[in-house]
C-alpha cells in the first residue's frame, strides 16, 4: 500500500515538471519548483515508511528548510536582475 502511494506521488511530480517546462513567465517555474519540493518531502517520508527506516524523516525536516530558503534566494536574485536590467547599473 505504501508502494501505491509512492507511485501516485511520483506521477504527480511528473505533472508538476510539465508546468515547469511550459510556464510562460519565470515565476511559474519558481512556483513549480516549490511545489515539487513539497511533494519530494512527502515522497521521502513515505519511502521511509516503505523500507521501514525511520531515519528518513530527518531528511524530510532538512529538505523543508532547504526548499524554503532556496525559493527565497532565487526570488532575491531575480529581483536584483530585474533592477539591473532597468537601471543599467551594477547592483
Amino acid at each position, binding site marked *: *500500500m505504501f508502494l501505491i*502511494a509512492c507511485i*501516485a*506521488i511520483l506521477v*504527480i511530480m511528473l*505533472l*508538476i515538471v*510539465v*508546468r515547469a517546462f511550459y510556464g510562460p*513567465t519565470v*515565476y*511559474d517555474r*519558481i*512556483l*513549480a519548483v*516549490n*511545489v515539487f519540493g*513539497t*511533494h519530494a*518531502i*512527502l515522497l521521502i*517520508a*513515505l519511502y521511509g*515508511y516503505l523500507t521501514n527506516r*525511520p531515519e528518513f*524523516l*530527518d531528511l*524530510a*525536516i532538512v529538505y*523543508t*528548510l532547504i526548499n*524554503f530558503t532556496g*525559493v*527565497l534566494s532565487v*526570488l532575491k536574485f*531575480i*529581483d536584483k536582475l*530585474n533592477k539591473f536590467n532597468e537601471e543599467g547599473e551594477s547592483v
Partner: protein
Amino acid sequence: MIILILSWILIFTGIFLCFTAVLGLLRLPDLYTRIHAAGISDTYGVGLVVFGLILQTGISLISFKLIFIVLLLWYTSPISSHSLLKAAYQSKLLPALKDEEKST
C-alpha cells in the same frame, strides 16, 4: 484495525488533494490563480498524509518528528507564496481579467 483503515483513508485523501492542486496548477489561466492552487497541496496535502502516518505509528519520537515537519511547512509556505506574489506584482505582471465585451 479501525485506526489502520482510518489512517489509509486519510493518506489517500491527502494524495487526492495533492492531485487536485496539481490539476489546478496545469489548467488555471494565470500565475495568481496558480499560486492559490499550489497552496492547497502545501497545507492540506501534506497535513492529511502526515496525520494519517501519525495515526499509524502511535505516540513515539517518529510522530514528534512528523509533527515538526508539518509545523515547519505550515509556517514557511505562506511566506514563500507571499514573496512570490509580491515579486511578480512588482515586476508588473498583470492578472488575466475577463473581457467585458465578450460577456454581453
